[in-house]
């Protein structure tokens, strides 16, 4: 047992030494090893003490009484008397309740400062008609640079990119493949389509583009969110083809300006981001 205690001390000292050394390789590992062993050796010593030196015999003892009837009666009586004296004065009871309630309300009122409760901000996006698309390095996105089978994340020029309404996915499809519903007709720019990059299920960024490698099984390209694998069809207006999302991806109308640069031709066709109670009530702010 003394041996174990000695080993524990040595390990603890080793921890201090390793810590005091300058940066050495595997310092974290050595520190963990030294401290872990110091604790474990001490634990082993204690367990040996418990097994050998300390009497470990079991004792028998009655469980505590299940209840205390006399005390129960006295407590009940005392509580009852206190309540009774108030009870007899109906108005006083009402006043106490009123004051307690009002004070509680007053106490929680400052919590309203935490944040707004109005949901109008949920409809905001930085997209406006004519706003240019830029990539992550703030370079303009040109229609000619959009390759089929490739996946681009784009942002409104000069906007805050961390806003959920900012990022869009841009892909190029064959025009023959496009099968947009009538409400979204014309949202594409010569086969280039853009959708909100934020999954309508749980707010993750869509980061996968499943391009068919074997047509009979995977007939269509699809946009996939890596969090819960909601899968959206970019050819049909971002409709859900698999996974838990309950709503199509909002689509951003595009046009190509005279310089070949992609521009928004308006705002999304629906509210951006994960679903909530008002997400279908109206589209984004103009």
């Amino acid at each position, binding site marked *: 047992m003394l041996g174990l205690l000695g080993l524990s001390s040595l390990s603890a000292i080793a921890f201090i030494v390793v810590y005091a050394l300058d940066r050495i390789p595997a310092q974290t590992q050595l520190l*963990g090893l030294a401290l*872990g062993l110091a604790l474990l050796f001490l634990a082993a010593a204690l367990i040996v003490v418990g097994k050998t030196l300390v009497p470990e015999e079991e004792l028998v003892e009655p469980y505590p009484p299940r209840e205390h009837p006399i005390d129960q009666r006295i407590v009940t009586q005392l509580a009852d008397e206190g309540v009774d004296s108030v009870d007899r004065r109906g108005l006083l009871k009402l006043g106490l309740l009123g004051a307690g309630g009002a004070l509680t309300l007053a106490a929680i009122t400052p919590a309203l400062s935490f*944040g707004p409760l109005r949901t109008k901000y949920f409809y905001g996006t930085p997209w406006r008609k004519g706003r240019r698309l830029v990539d992550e390095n703030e370079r303009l996105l040109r229609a000619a640079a959009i390759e089929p089978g490739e996946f681009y994340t784009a942002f409104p020029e000069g906007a805050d990119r961390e806003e959920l309404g900012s990022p869009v996915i841009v892909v190029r499809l064959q025009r023959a493949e496009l099968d947009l519903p009538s409400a979204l007709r014309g949202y594409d720019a010569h086969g280039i389509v853009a959708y909100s990059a934020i999954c309508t299920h749980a707010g*993750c960024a869509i980061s996968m583009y499943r391009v068919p490698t074997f047509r009979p099984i995977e007939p269509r390209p699809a946009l996939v969110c890596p969090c819960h694998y909601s899968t959206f069809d970019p050819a049909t207006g971002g409709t859900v083809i698999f996974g838990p999302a309950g709503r199509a991806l909002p689509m951003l109308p595009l046009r190509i300006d005279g310089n070949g640069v992609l521009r928004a031709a308006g705002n999304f066709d629906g509210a951006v981001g994960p679903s909530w109670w*008002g997400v279908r009530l109206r589209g984004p702010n103009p």
Partner: protein
Amino acid sequence: MVGCAPAGAEPVIRGAVRYLDRRSGTAPFVRKALRYLFPDHWSFLLGEVALYAFIVLVATGVYLTFFFVDSTHEVVYHGPYAPLHDQHMSEAYRSVLDISTRVKAGLLIRQTHHWAANVFIAAIVLHLFRIFFTGAFRKPRELTYYIGVTMLMVTLLEAYLGYSLVDDLLSGMGLAIGYSVGLSIPFVGANVMEWLFHGPFPGSAALWPRMYIAHVFLFPILIAALLTVHLALVALKHHTQFQEGRGQSERAVVGVPTWPGQTPRSLGLMLSVAGVLFLLGGLIQINPIWLWGPYHTYASTNGAQPDWYLGWLIGGLRLMPGFDVVIGKYTLIPNAFWGGALYPLIVFGFLYFAPWLERVLTGDRAYHNVLDRPRDAPRRTAIGVAMIVWVVLVFAAGSADRVDVLFGITYVSQIWVYRVLVFVGPAVGAVIAYRICKELQAGEPVEAARHAAMPAD
């Protein structure tokens, strides 16, 4: 005669006891505490392991607070980890990178903290299984049980907050999912989340200090308070015990006294838990946040897996078929509600109602100090196994993407299999568990007879 410490005792001890008792009057209490009996069974140590992991969590957590910065203010990284140079990130994430690379022993403490969280929750869950399958939640210990279940719930939130504070890519994705689940609560979800986050996701600068104070102050205090009441209730009613024929009965408890028998054991266990956690923290890498990179709302990564204790929720979110419940243009129930909110509500609802369910199903309102073995209550065991199978299947569904990558079974077909299994599996599990219990019961007289037939074992 005036009560006096025994003359033969060590004068130092005698003096100390007298000093304390005269000034605090606690000698009767200490006498009881030293003679408190601990019934002996390995499964009674699971709760203790959780307690010790919590102590390690507090100790390592306090150290981390001296270095962590609770700000999402954007900075450009120029620290020692070259692959992230010139990247835009929050001060919070940079401070955790610095803890991992610049603060001596920082990585050890951070990884030990993370391991301790995983072990803490695992120990609580195993402890819960022990309590459930032995019927320890029955009268008179229902309050102890309700507080324990509440602690598990608070602990899950606390761990999720800690994971989210780092603001690496994975933790940010986790926070976005949590936000979306909050958003999916019918009628009020969006308003409540906007209020908590101070604006729509990713919220304002006010969010990080809020999460931080909740993680390092509010929730730990809440857990510590619940823990105190939990332990006080255990001690006041004394521990349950198995019937092992050494004098155990509903009226008498058999066990090792706190002093001297139990003390070295418990201290030994505490030091072992701490030792193992520091070994894990030093030797086995966990959550290498520098590899994930900083979070941006527009970025995400494939193959993201949360810590194990959230795996069941990601499975629940992934299994749900894609639909929102819509009335006209009003979205009544967004999809994330099913897997992210309703599913854990059902699981915790079951846990809270278990004592009531037991009373209704068995009509048993008696007072219990002696525990059941799982076989002694086949129906309870069957129901518990069904619940476990259900949660484990949903958990497994959460890893279907890894199975796809590792074994090439397509994700879509796996999800369809799980959608069926989550209904079939629990029923099958319950039937099998029930049969095993009955078989074990039936085998007992045979075993006893065989034992009796064999003289001198």
